[in-house]
C-alpha cells in the first residue's frame, strides 16, 4: 500500500516542496524515515503514532517506510508531521489518494492530534503557489501568514481529525479570507524628533537617509545625541510597501521572531546589535545557515553604536551586504543567499576620550591612540557609507529653549513624498529606493545640469574621490533632489551631497 502526499520545508528563507512517499508493507512493526531527516523530523515518528491513535485512527502495526524526496536535501523542522500522518491514513485507505491531489500539508502534531505552529509558513505558501498547488493546509496559529498570499486557498484545521473529515467530505472547512496586510499602519512611537534639541545638520542628514535609504555615520562627542537621533530614525521612515512587508515577514517567520499579536511585519525592523556581536551572528551562519542581523534588518535599519568597538574582522564582513544588498553564506553542508538591503546607521566618538574637535573640552588622547581608534574602521568600509557627519555639542541655550524641534510626523510627510517619487521611478526595476540603484540606473536617473556637473568635477578632483564615491554622491544628490521635488539634480543638491559625505576629515 503506497501513498504519496506533499509537504513543505524551508531552505534558507525559501520554501521547498517535499514529496512524502509512504509505503505500508507487511512485517514486524517498524517506522523508518529516510531522506536526510534531521532529529526533529525523525522524532515525527512518536508524534504521528500518538496523534493518530488519540484521534481514533488506527496506527498500522506493520512495516512503515517514509521517504522524503528530494533525498539530498536536509529536511528540517516539525512541519512534516502532518503530511506523514495524512500519508499513513491514505495508505490505510481512510482517505482516497485522489483526495490529496493538488494539496499541500504543513503542521506539527501534538500527541492529542492537535496542530501546532511551525516556522517559515509564509515562504512555504509562496512556494506552494509557485509550484501550482491549489490548496494548502496549515495550523491555525499560522493563520495570519495564510491571509497574505492570494491565488491559493489556505485552510486552517484545528486538529488532525477535523482535517481528515474535511478530506473525506463529511465536514467542510472554509478557506481563510484574504487580507490586505497594510492595514493600521499608523503606529504610535514613544520617541519623536520633536524631543531633539538643535542638531540641524544631523536632522537633515537623517531625513535624507530615510528618504533614500542611504547609510550614515554620526560622529560626535559623548552625550551629543548620536544614539538619541538614531533611535528616532524609525519614526520618519516611509511605511513599508506590500512587497517589502512580505520580504520582512518571510525572514521573521523563518527565525520564529514574528510578534505574537501581529504575525506580519508591517513595520520596518530596527536592529541594534551590541558591539560584542560575533561575525556569524551579524552576517548569518551555522552549519545550516540561519539569517544574521544584516538580514533581520532587511528593509529596515541596522544601528551600530560605538562603531570602533566592534571587532574589525566583524565590521569588514559588512562590505558585501552593503554593496550588493544580499549576503552569501557558504558552509560545507549548504550555501544560502539572504537578502540584506538595510539602512546602516553607525555612531562613534571622534577619539577614545571623545572630545577631539570640541570647542570647550580639550582632547586628552595621544595622537597614536586617536590613529588606532580611527584605524579600526577601514577605508573600504567608510567608502561604502554615503553620509558621514560631525555632530556638535548642544549648547545650554538650545537645550533649555522651549522651542520644539520639528515633529517626526512632519518630516515623515516629506520623506514619504520623496520615497513615492522613487517608487514610481523604479516601478519596473524591483528596487525601492535610490541607494539600491545599480551603476546603470545611476547613469539613467541621475541627470545633472551643467552647473552641477561643474561642481562635481571640481570637488571630485580636489578631494581625490573614488569611483564608488562618485556614484554614491550622485545617489545622495538624487535623494536630495527628490526631497526638493526636482527632476534634475542641481548644483546645490550635488554640493550638499558632497558636503555630507566628506565633512569628516581623516
Amino acid at each position, binding site marked *: 500500500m503506497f501513498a504519496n502526499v506533499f509537504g513543505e520545508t524551508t531552505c534558507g528563507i525559501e520554501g521547498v516542496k517535499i514529496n512524502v512517499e509512504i509505503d505500508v508493507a*507487511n*512485517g*514486524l*512493526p517498524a517506522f523508518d524515515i529516510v531522506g536526510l531527516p534531521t532529529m526533529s523530523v525523525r522524532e515525527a515518528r512518536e508524534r504521528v503514532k500518538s496523534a493518530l491513535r488519540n484521534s481514533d485512527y488506527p496506527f498500522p*502495526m506493520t512495516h512503515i517506510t517514509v521517504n522524503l524526496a528530494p533525498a539530498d536535501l536536509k529536511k528540517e523542522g516539525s512541519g512534516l508531521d502532518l503530511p506523514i500522518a495524512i500519508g499513513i491514513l491514505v495508505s490505510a485507505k481512510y482517505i482516497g489518494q485522489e483526495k490529496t491531489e493538488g494539496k499541500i500539508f504543513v503542521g506539527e502534531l501534538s500527541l492529542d492530534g492537535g496542530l501546532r505552529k511551525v516556522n517559515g509558513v509564509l515562504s512555504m505558501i509562496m512556494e506552494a503557489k509557485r509550484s501550482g498547488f491549489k490548496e494548502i493546509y496549515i495550523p491555525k496559529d499560522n493563520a495570519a501568514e495564510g491571509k497574505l498570499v492570494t491565488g491559493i486557498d489556505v485552510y486552517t484545521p484545528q486538529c488532525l481529525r477535523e482535517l481528515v473529515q474535511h478530506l473525506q467530505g463529511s465536514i467542510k472547512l472554509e478557506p481563510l479570507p484574504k487580507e490586505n496586510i497594510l492595514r493600521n499602519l499608523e503606529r504610535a512611537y514613544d520617541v519623536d524628533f520633536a524631543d531633539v534639541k538643535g542638531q540641524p545638520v544631523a536632522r537633515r542628514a537623517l531625513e535624507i537617509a530615510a528618504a533614500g535609504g542611504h547609510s550614515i555615520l554620526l560622529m560626535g562627542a559623548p552625550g551629543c545625541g548620536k544614539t538619541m537621533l538614531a533611535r528616532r530614525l524609525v519614526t520618519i521612515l516611509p511605511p513599508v510597501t506590500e512587497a517589502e512587508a512580505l520580504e520582512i515577514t518571510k525572514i521573521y517567520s523563518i527565525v520564529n521572531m514574528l510578534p505574537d499579536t501581529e504575525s506580519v511585519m508591517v513595520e520596518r525592523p530596527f536592529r541594534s546589535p551590541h558591539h560584542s556581536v560575533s561575525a556569524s551572528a551579524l552576517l548569518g551562519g551555522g552549519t545550516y545557515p540561519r539569517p544574521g542581523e544584516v538580514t533581520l534588518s532587511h528593509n529596515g535599519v541596522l544601528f551600530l553604536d560605538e562603531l570602533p568597538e566592534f571587532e574589525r574582522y566583524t565590521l569588514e564582513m559588512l562590505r558585501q551586504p552593503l554593496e550588493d544588498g544580499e549576503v552569501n553564506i557558504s558552509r560545507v553542508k549548504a550555501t544560502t543567499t539572504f537578502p540584506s538591503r538595510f539602512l546602516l546607521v553607525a555612531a562613534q566618538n571622534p577619539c577614545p576620550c571623545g572630545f577631539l574637535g570640541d570647542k570647550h573640552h580639550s582632547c586628552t588622547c595621544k595622537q597614536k591612540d586617536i590613529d588606532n581608534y580611527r584605524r579600526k574602521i577601514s577605508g573600504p568600509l567608510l567608502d561604502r557609507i554615503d553620509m558621514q557627519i560631525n555632530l556638535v555639542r548642544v549648547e545650554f541655550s538650545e537645550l533649555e529653549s522651549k522651542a520644539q524641534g520639528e515633529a517626526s510626523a512632519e518630516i515623515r510627510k516629506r520623506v514619504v513624498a520623496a520615497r513615492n517619487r522613487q517608487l514610481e521611478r523604479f516601478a519596473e526595476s524591483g528596487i525601492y529606493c535610490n541607494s539600491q540603484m545599480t551603476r546603470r540606473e545611476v547613469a539613467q536617473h541621475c541627470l545633472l545640469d551643467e552647473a552641477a556637473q561643474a561642481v562635481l568635477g571640481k570637488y571630485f578632483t580636489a578631494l581625490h574621490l573614488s569611483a564608488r564615491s562618485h556614484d554614491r554622491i550622485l545617489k545622495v544628490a538624487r535623494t536630495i533632489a527628490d526631497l526638493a521635488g526636482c527632476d534634475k539634480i542641481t548644483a546645490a543638491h550635488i554640493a550638499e551631497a558632497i558636503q555630507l559625505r566628506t565633512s569628516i576629515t581623516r
Partner: protein
Amino acid sequence: MNHRIELGKFGEDFACSYLQKQGYKILYRNFRCRLGEIDIIAVKNDVLSFIEVKTRRQSNSTYGMPREAVNQAKQKKIYRCAELYMQSKGIILTMPVLSFDVIEIITEGTAVKDMHHYPHCF
C-alpha cells in the same frame, strides 16, 4: 505449570503443526542456551528458519499485538542464539541461507482466533 508458560507451549505446538503443514521440517524446539532461547528451528527448501512464536489472549489486546513484543533487544537475542546454535551443530561454515521469522497467535478461550506468519522479518 503456570498459565503463561502453558499458553506459550500451546502456541508453539500450534505453530509447529502449521509449519509442518506448510512443508517445513522441524529441526529443534526450544533451543536453550545461556544467551536465550529460540522457539522453533525449522528448514524448508534449504532455508534455515529461526522462528519466534508470540501468543496472546484476545482479552489482553489492549497491550498491543503480539508481534509488537518482538523488539530490537529480543531480535538481537535471537540472532546470537542462532549463531550459537549453528556453531554447536557445525553448520556455520556451510553458510546456510537464513530466515528469522515471527509467528503471532491470538487465542480466544481455548481456540486460536488469529494467526500470522512473518517470514524474513528481521
